[in-house]
């Protein structure tokens, strides 16, 4: 059963009472919240996700609620709790849905070391998975959103989960996080892009999330085989330009973008070595999304 099949009131009831269980890639997540924007965000962006069953094992139980005391009414805030643990300071309540996304990122990055986790957008076309590791400002999410709007499959806009057993990439096709000008750029780039509420003045500036394509969500269970590692760099006025990377320097650059390379130690090094040896690795500067799309599709 999908989230979209719940009525508005049933969705909100579950959020308030027993928790809304969602199957999000490899993670069953149960969310409790009585804050309106959280329900709105889920309705707008998570419709295609499958609900968990009553007896299912839940990996992450999280909640988004108002802190107790005065701040419930006076400049209301929201707290993210991971099963009773509060990893963050409270945020203004208007950012509650974005905080769900950030909080879930935190849960995965800190509790899923069965994967080598790389800070990257991950997309796929014709069976080839492309990893776009991203330092902030590189434009990875924008490029990822653009390609996904044009038919690429979304595996994740935030993290590549590389299985330490098989080297495959496991999808977590959650909404794509867009910031500042990227929101307008994507809305103009594709009229099919569905955006959630736009929230201003967050720690990351203005943010909004793009709904993941239904087909990507439906393939949540299907891991992919990595074939390309692209380090994107948005450069004003640049022609699309691919610069091949040696395996050694690609390995170092991916390691820098990994959340848990040091946790995995030798195993991390081996998994990363395997990954890099299977992939063609490039640095990629571009300005136009259309040209970038064309260039990347020519590699597949």
């Amino acid at each position, binding site marked *: 059963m999908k989230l979209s099949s719940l009525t508005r009131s049933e969705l909100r009831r579950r959020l308030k009472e027993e928790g809304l269980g969602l199957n999000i890639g490899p993670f069953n997540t149960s969310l409790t919240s009585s804050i309106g924007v959280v329900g709105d965000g889920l309705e707008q962006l998570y419709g295609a996700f499958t609900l968990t069953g009553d007896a299912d094992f839940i990996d992450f139980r999280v909640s988004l609620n108002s802190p107790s005391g005065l701040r419930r009414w006076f400049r209301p805030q929201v707290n993210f709790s991971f099963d*009773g*643990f509060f990893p963050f300071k409270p945020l203004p309540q208007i950012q509650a849905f974005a905080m769900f996304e950030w909080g879930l990122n935190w849960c995965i990055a800190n509790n*899923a070391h069965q994967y080598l986790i790389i800070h990257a957008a991950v997309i796929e076309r014709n069976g080839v998975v492309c990893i776009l590791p991203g330092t902030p400002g590189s434009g990875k999410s924008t490029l990822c959103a653009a390609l996904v709007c044009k038919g690429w499959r979304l595996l994740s806009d935030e993290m590549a989960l590389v299985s330490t057993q098989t080297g495959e990439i496991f999808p977590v096709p959650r909404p794509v996080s867009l910031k500042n000008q990227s929101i307008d750029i994507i809305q103009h780039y594709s009229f099919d892009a569905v955006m959630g509420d736009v929230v201003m003045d967050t720690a990351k500036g203005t943010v909004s999330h793009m709904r993941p394509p239904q087909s990507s969500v439906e393939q949540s269970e299907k891991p992919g085989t990595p074939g390309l590692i692209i380090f994107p760099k948005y450069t004003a006025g640049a022609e699309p330009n691919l610069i091949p990377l040696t395996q050694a320097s690609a390995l170092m650059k991916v390691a820098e973008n990994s959340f848990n390379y040091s946790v995995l130690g030798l195993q991390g090094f081996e998994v990363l070595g395997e990954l890099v040896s299977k992939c063609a690795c490039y640095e990629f500067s571009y300005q136009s999304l259309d040209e970038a799309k064309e260039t990347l599709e020519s590699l597949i």
Partner: protein
Amino acid sequence: MPPESILVQFLSGTIEAERVADSPACELLLRQARSANLLSRVAALCDDKNLTSRLPQRMQNHLQSAQAVAEANHRSVKWEAKQIELTLLADDIPFCLLKGGAYVVGQTVAAKGRVFSDVDILVPREFLEKTEQLLIRKGWMCTNFDSYDQRYYRTWMHELPPLQHMKRGTTLDVHHAIIPPTARIKSDIEKIWKSAHKVDKYKVLYIPDNKDLVLHSAVHLFCDGELENGLRDLSDLDLLLRDLSVNDDFWAGLLARSVELNLQRPLFYALRYTHALLKTPVPAKFLTASKQGSPGSLVEKWMDFLFYRALLPDHITCTDRWTGLARWMLFVRSHWLKMPPLQLAQHLARKGYKRWKKRNASV
């Protein structure tokens, strides 16, 4: 009746494997173990019991993840030990690893799935200043610049304010005793040094004798007020006691040592609660003998009320309406044990005022 915890049942071996493998029970175990910082230990124990492959796949994933964290912790503490050795070797200053670090480097059974957030070392009091200087030179920096806190640690406590390594981010607590000098109980640290063992291939690195590891763990757990890792520390004690008691004369030796170090009270609590909660096989004879350290039957009952709650995981599924109060009272008790009443009153007033000021500044 105090609340029950599936994690406690698992650690004490009083729950059947089939029941743990059942999905809702398994998830409950995950949640409690995660909140008690014991998930890596649960993973190691599941492996020992050949249970892992019978658990739900999702649980296996979490256990695998937790094991990676413990292994990373162990690599890190060994590396830190080596770096501290190289730093202190310059002046031939001996140092002794304590708690988690000692379990891992000393290859004791309590290393099993043990995670920790800081490294604790002991140095002789006369080398304390020199040690700090050498460490600072190698990148361990003090992170707390509050002048009151500095004075609090340096004049009253048994440790320096925590140091943090600039590059690696690891936290280091440098102790010169196991109990604050202002505390009611006094214990002669010289005696711990005398029976400590030098670690192979190291020149200035020592590990306390096994009995002293047990006693120090007991002091830490039953005299310090920070009980968020209470069950983890109790499980350390349980593993150590089970392992060491294969020697027939262990229990008598441990009791004798507690008398030498003047630590009968913490040992009494350690044996009482490992036995009661984790079913540690302490022979009846020695349980009775440890009563020398009892605070009296009235206080015992009161402590039972507090510890049967505060030693459980700090998780919503194993708390009752008294748990919060119990934790708070044990926190207050730990301060009461640490300093004389007048000093405590001053300390609390000072801390309370600072907190109040800080809160008002942030609104």
